[in-house]
């Protein structure tokens, strides 16, 4: 069926060789495993009744869990991870009538979905656990009952952050806590992940206080560093289970590159239009298809276009297509999930909201409209099709940006490439300090708490004491600040200066000050949930940005000048070229913004903001000056070359560390006062650093190779959005010189 469909596509007259690669993954037979000792009879009966036989990875994980080992399970979507941790949990809850377990999910939707599964298991086995969700949506009158009665509680890290100071109300639950399950742990990375790691340490500290030592079970999508990630997240030792025993059908993976619009080979056809065409074709071929888009707006638009086109051919089919995204009401979402499972819908266009483990059954075809930013996400999305032995098709449609185009040129890089690392930084002083402060209001801090905060505890205590936020008493350091600490620390951002964006007195979102300078200056068009707002005022004293809702047909780009100084060198390597890594002080001065309709500049306005300075962590590359001289002799621009290399390196960085290119900043200069030499800087765009540059620094050689390949194999002549143009450039992509960049990179690679 899949072969036929591909044949039909390629035979069509409108086909312009968009398929640049076709990878076939052979089917895999199931591998079963056995348990070292049998489960309780009541649980065995449940497995028999549901005709479940444990796969090898499930059995391996359960055996390890029952030996009191902490386990991290890394297997693809739909390989039965939920069952793997539900079985030991139900076993212990059956054997010990007080035992409790805590499940942590990154989103409320996921917790709701899993509660159904757990409750269903409760009724089928007859083991009573009173499972319940306890989060911000839990009604007040139910809360005491859940705290006192429930033995399985589902929650999320945000909730735990707020409930920890009230640990005495959870005494029964914490005293008997046997397992903590952390599902979808790959989501906990970057700033959010570093904050969650601290919350989990705080939770374990409270568990210790109540004399419980829960086992930890972590599940994650395939990442390059599951063990390291789990250890960093929880500060415990872990065993990895990664060999997947679940059966798989034959899967065909095709890379689809939109064709050039003309012979100048600069612009390609819109990715969204290509997606729509493919989706229509799939629906007409009766393939149940799930299409992933990168934004909510596109999910809605592609749905609309597809419906319109289908309506012309078959009005009945057009009703079987719908969009799905966060922001829909929970019952609407449930309905879509069920319709998808029951095959009442033939196609759903979704944001990555459907990427996490919500159960929607199995599909025939997946369309990924634009590389979702990481190999991990791509495989997660691809895993939505072809469960069991069913044949399936996955299509990745490229955007015209450097990373997407890189994969179109080097498809093998995608398939052979290891998954990215999930990065957590336990050394960010802003994050650590905030959580040490929170910990001090849960239990007095003692010096032996460095078991939980081994990185920066002692220095944090001194710093907090200096500011009178904690006070030394015979019982330990006691919190004595004025505000409620959990309200000062925000898990989604680094605990520093944040700007609150308000519209008519209501809070829309909270931005870090850096982001606010970039996106919420006076006059800026701010996008929030695909609606446009105009910023009326950015008040730096109160840290409030006032916006008004207005439909405009232009967007704004800020222009900035960046200056970087090295405040401390931490490590250096290489001779020619020389690389360094250390603490930087970055000063950004936003001076102007440009109003654009599509790519047409319609106006320029000055920004009246003082320069912003923050300290962060970054790497630098010193380019030998003789390269500049050679380039000048050749009549090429050294400055343009450096600038182009900087852009391309930042664009390719997400290959190595799971991040967004907007999380990284850069600067290139022909002479830098701190180094006395031509330098390219790449730094984390977060106060205190978040570990991205550190990961890049350790793989700097590979970074150069990939950057060179990217630029070398781009078909454009003088640079294009697929290689050296950056959408976020503060200098409007001036000057850029592709040939000079190639020359520099070739020299660097030698």
């Amino acid at each position: 069926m899949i072969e036929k469909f591909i044949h039909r596509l390629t035979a069509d007259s409108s086909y312009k060789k968009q398929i640049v690669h076709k990878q076939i993954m052979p089917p895999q037979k199931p591998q079963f495993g056995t348990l070292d000792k049998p489960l309780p009879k009541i649980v065995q009966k449940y497995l028999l009744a549901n005709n479940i036989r444990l796969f090898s990875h499930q059995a391996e994980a359960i055996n390890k869990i029952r030996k009191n080992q902490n386990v991290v399970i890394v297997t693809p979507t739909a390989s039965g991870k939920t069952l793997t941790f539900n079985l030991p949990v139900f076993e212990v809850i059956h054997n010990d009538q007080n035992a409790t377990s805590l499940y942590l999910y990154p989103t409320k939707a996921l917790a709701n979905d899993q509660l159904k599964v757990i409750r269903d298991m409760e009724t089928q086995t007859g083991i009573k656990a009173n499972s319940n969700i306890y989060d911000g949506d839990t009604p007040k009158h139910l809360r005491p009952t859940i705290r006192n009665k429930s033995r399985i509680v589902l929650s999320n890290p945000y909730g735990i952050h707020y409930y920890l100071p009230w640990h005495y109300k959870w005494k029964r639950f914490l005293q008997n806590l046997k397992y903590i399950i952390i599902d979808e742990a790959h989501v906990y990375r970057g700033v959010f992940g570093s904050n969650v790691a601290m919350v989990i340490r705080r939770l374990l500290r409270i568990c210790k206080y109540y004399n419980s030592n829960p086992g930890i079970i972590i599940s994650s999508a395939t990442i390059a560093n599951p063990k390291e990630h789990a250890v960093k997240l929880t500060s415990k030792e872990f065993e990895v289970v990664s060999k997947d025993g679940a059966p798989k059908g034959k899967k065909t993976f095709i890379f689809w590159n939109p064709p050039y619009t003309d012979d100048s080979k600069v612009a390609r056809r819109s990715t969204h239009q290509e997606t729509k065409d493919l989706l229509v074709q799939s629906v007409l071929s009766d393939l149940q298809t799930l299409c992933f888009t990168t934004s909510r707006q596109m999910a809605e638009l592609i749905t609309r276009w597809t419906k319109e086109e289908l309506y012309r051919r078959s009005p009945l089919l057009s009703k079987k297509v719908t969009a799905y995204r966060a922001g829909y009401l929970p019952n609407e979402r449930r309905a879509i999930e069920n319709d998808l499972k029951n095959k009442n819908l033939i196609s759903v266009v979704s944001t990555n909201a459907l990427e996490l483990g919500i159960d929607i059954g199995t599909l025939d075809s997946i369309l990924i409209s634009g590389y979702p930013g990481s190999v991990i996400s791509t495989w997660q999305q691809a895993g939505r099709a072809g469960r069991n032995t069913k044949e399936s098709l996955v299509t990745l449609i490229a955007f015209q940006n450097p990373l997407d185009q890189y994969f179109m040129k080097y498809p093998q890089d995608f398939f052979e490439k290891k998954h990215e690392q999930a990065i957590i930084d336990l050394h960010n002083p802003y994050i650590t300090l905030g959580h040490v402060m929170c910990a001090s209001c849960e239990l007095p801090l003692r010096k032996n708490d460095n078991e939980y905060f081994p990185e920066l505890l002692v220095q944090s205590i001194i710093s907090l004491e200096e500011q009178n936020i904690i006070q030394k008493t015979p019982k330990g350091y006691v919190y004595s600040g004025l505000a409620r600490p959990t309200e000062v620390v925000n898990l989604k951002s680094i605990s520093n200066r944040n700007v609150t964006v308000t519209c008519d007195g209501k809070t829309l979102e909270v931005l870090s000050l850096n982001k606010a300078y970039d996106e919420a200056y006076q006059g800026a068009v701010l996008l929030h949930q695909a609606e446009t707002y105009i910023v009326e005022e950015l008040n730096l004293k109160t840290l409030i940005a006032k916006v008004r809702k207005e439909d405009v047909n232009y967007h704004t780009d800020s222009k900035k000048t960046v200056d970087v100084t090295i405040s401390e060198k931490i490590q250096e390597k290489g001779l020619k070229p020389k690389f360094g890594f250390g603490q930087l002080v970055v000063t950004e001065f936003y001076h102007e913004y440009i109003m654009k309709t599509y790519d047409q500049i319609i106006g320029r306005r000055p920004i009246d903001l003082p320069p912003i300075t923050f300290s962060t962590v970054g790497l630098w590359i010193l380019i030998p000056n003789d390269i500049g001289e050679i380039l000048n002799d050749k009549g090429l621009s050294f400055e343009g070359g450096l600038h182009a290399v900087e852009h391309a390196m930042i664009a390719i960085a997400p290959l190595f560390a799971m991040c967004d290119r907007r999380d990284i900043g850069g600067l290139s200069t022909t002479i830098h006062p701190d180094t006395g030499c031509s330098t390219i800087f790449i730094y984390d765009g977060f106060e205190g650093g978040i570990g991205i540059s550190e990961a890049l620094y350790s793989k700097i050689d590979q970074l150069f190779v990939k950057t060179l390949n990217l630029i070398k194999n781009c078909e454009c002549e003088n640079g294009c959005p697929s290689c050296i143009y950056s959408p976020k450039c503060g200098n409007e992509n001036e000057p850029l010189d592709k040939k000079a960049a190639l020359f520099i990179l070739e020299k660097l690679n030698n």
Partner: protein
Amino acid sequence: MPVVYACKNCGTRHSKSHYAKSRLCKKCGRLLLSQFITARFNTENSTGNNFSGKKPFQNRFSSISAEYFSLQKAAKNLFYKTRNQKAYSLFSQNELEKKPETKENQWWLLHIEHKNAQKLKKQLMKKYKKKSLEQTIPGKTISNTHGDFYSINEISKSEFNKMDYRKCKKNLLSDLKILSGIGPKREFKLKKDGYSSIKALENHPLWKKSASNFMNLINKKEIGQLQSHLWKNHPKSHPLIHYLAGLNKTENFAIVDIETLGLSERPIVLIGIATLRKKAVHTSQLLMRSISDEPAAIWAFTKKIHSHYSLISYNGRSFDIPYIQQRLAYYGIDCQINNPHFDLLHFTRRALRHKLRNCRLETVEEYLNIGRGINIPGALVPEFYQTYQQTGNVGPLVAIVEHNKQDLITLATLFSRLYEEWNS
């Protein structure tokens, strides 16, 4: 020294006016750094202590100095952030009348009250400058297993009225609706049939069991259990629940009010307890001279509150007692406070809501014609205590202790007045 902004890229110097205008170098267009950073670079470059590699190699994780510097900066940020999140917001009387919703949500404070309190703080600090705590507030230091604290004992004159035992029993027993399953209709019918009280119902074939259970509780004077029994069919503010006080002796009531550094999760600075006699109130205030005193004082409080005490408080059911419970857990002291509890806020809301503009204790005092000597708004206690901690001047403490004592005495009066209100 003239203010000079040098471009550290090309060295061109610029005037301050130029810097104010554009902040970019005239020659090379790069960013001009602020004076401080420029100056730092000049010195670093001139001493040769710059990048060219004289510093020894440092591993990131052992470089304490740089991280410590960032931590210090981060701590300063946290300090400003916590300071800016005030526990109260300031309103003028007009604003408050315009926006009634703020009354409910915020711990608000009137501008004028705030101003007066600041004036008072200044006066007190002047008056008690260089005076020790013992000279200013007579009391004594008390020690126990968890440390020591400062205790202030005093006897004040006050009337305390409550329903007497017989009347209380009569009132309770004549309301058949207390038993679950009996509504107004059925009560009417039962009374017509001659079952005039719950005691009589002990002979009724259907209600025999629950009636005798209830009688049992009354005879045993189980106030706590009776309260939860009554809550099933009555609102928490129902006068009947207030009447329950009649079951206990006057000496077995303890009024509780605490002063804290915030609304939750922060230390308690003063615990006020008042025990009652017919014509007097014995107040005993446990003061933390510093935060180190807190565990000892809380421990002493739990020892003082015997199980036969009934507590009286204002909003203590949702604030004071859970707060103390949280602090106990914080210090790892295993103790449960399960005393019967009369929260006067509930009763006041029911009885006086229509007569008052709000139910703050200050407003209630105005209505009851109770005057105060030294007074500060409760929301300002954290600020006053911090001033005491920072300066060591005991003046602000005088205001806190006095405020707390007055609260305790007011509660005793309020309790009696509520009784009178419902019995006139």
